[in-house]
């Protein structure tokens, strides 16, 4: 397994300049789609996961989605939000009284993870960072 000497850069909530670092860390390819309110920077990881980072005109990553046979590196994808995610997961397990897809809905962080091994779908966004005029449904 190749190990690259890159530090973990924040993705969600981070500067767009981290996208190039994410690409290197995930050993992937990069494609950028430009829009009026935001750009989408799409990374294909070496394990076959498509990660899309939604970047505002201010250069901030306000949402991330992923799709593929495995999870991406969630520390990498969620950046500084990873600990909030991890604690919320543990709290939800007991309150939901069972296993199933994940839905964390905090005022500052929304995370959804669906699917099963070989087919995962994930979405994370920071509602307070969403540019004005962007609908949640556009994040997919």
């Amino acid at each position: 397994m190749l190990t690259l000497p890159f530090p973990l850069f924040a993705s969600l909530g981070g500067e767009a300049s981290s996208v190039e670092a994410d690409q290197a860390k995930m050993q992937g390819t990069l494609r950028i789609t430009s829009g009026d309110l935001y750009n989408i920077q799409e990374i294909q990881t070496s394990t076959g996961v498509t990660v899309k980072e939604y970047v505002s005109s201010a250069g901030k990553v306000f949402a991330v989605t992923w799709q593929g046979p495995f999870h991406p590196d969630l520390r990498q994808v969620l950046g500084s939000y990873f600990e909030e995610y991890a604690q919320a997961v543990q709290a939800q397990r007991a309150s939901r009284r069972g296993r199933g897809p994940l839905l964390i809905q905090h005022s500052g962080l929304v995370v959804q993870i669906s699917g099963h091994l070989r087919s995962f779908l994930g979405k994370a966004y920071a509602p307070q960072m969403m540019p004005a005029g962007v609908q949640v449904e556009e994040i997919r």
Partner: protein
Amino acid sequence: MTRSRFEGLLCLSLAGALAATTGCGGGASTSSSSNSGSGTGTGTNPSVSNVQPITVNTGPTAGPPLNSPYINGAFTSVTVCIPGSTTSCQTISGILVDTGSSGLRILSSALTAISLPQQTDSNSNPIVECLPFLDGITWGPVETADMTIAGEEAKSLPLQVIGSTTFSTIPATCTSMGTPEDDLAALGANGILGVGSFAQDCGSACTVSGGSNPGLYYTCPNSGCEVTTESLSSQVQNPVVLFATDNNGVIIELPSVTGAETSVSGSIIFGIGTQSNNGLGSATVYTIDPNIGNFTTVFNGTSYGDASYIDSGSNAIYFLDSNATGLPTCTDASYWYCPTTTQNLSATNQGFGNGASGSVNFVVGNADTLTVLETTGAANGLAGPNSGSFDWGLPFFFGRNVYTAIEGKDTPAGAGPYWAY
């Protein structure tokens, strides 16, 4: 039903008395093999018992000290033996039946009566697995057992022992895929019996080295754990494929449930079309994408293509979101729907490539009402959001016989993978 309910309660009280370590019927025991004269798996073999009881109840977490009842979990028991032995065995109850994963995983805290042999690589270093679920990961060594369930036996089955103290340090590359579910409270069961449509948990991706390896299998010498390759036959795998017969899939049969009930009983039947009790009958076959294990569900005219799945290991029907369904989520639980009155809904499932199409009627109740009692173990109508996809969880199985055919395995309706109901 009454008898089974009593057994369920007895099982729970025993589990509590034993501090949930061995569970109902736990401890070392002698298993009697009924696997006589089984052949290559072709044809029928009426001498093998292929029916295992399952119970939907509040599960092994319900009693003290956790007092954390499960809802809509289908639990059963399995017996694991040291390979080749018929006396060094343990029967473990509170095992969740999961058609959404493949492979047997047992909490090390529940596997107390015997020590199973560790799987090692060519350098005699132990193999340890990091298995990603939706809501977390399980970490622990790959060990080998002869597993029996009903009259079926999976010899030399690679399985995962979760939460072993021998490998207590989880690599950061593993916890980056999710938070650990390494004890009873986090896992919600003493183990998981993955009887899904895949033969192995990882498949070919884990057999190759380099950047495309997803990092599920580790070799762990004393110096620390590193990602390694794992052959298909060494991977943790669906125990059904190792049965001598009845090895092409499973049927889960559960009765109809109206609203909330304490407990219901049903069966998991091994094999499809291999014996007189497991024919397809009038069930419709829905083929599924052999790469990712999904089919398509259509709702309100919108097609959610190749993103939906049937999963007994999900405790509700999780589908779409409030925008797409018009259903409000609960004010205190955004992961469940809370319509003021029970809604009768319909969706259409479509096979992946075989042209099968059929409507599914299902109900969505008020989750606050359905879950108000801690004694409720089965609730039809429990549902929640799952944006862009349908996860047909355990309530889908209520009142249906659901067939899961394993990839590459021949059945009277052709080779798997498929679902039929």
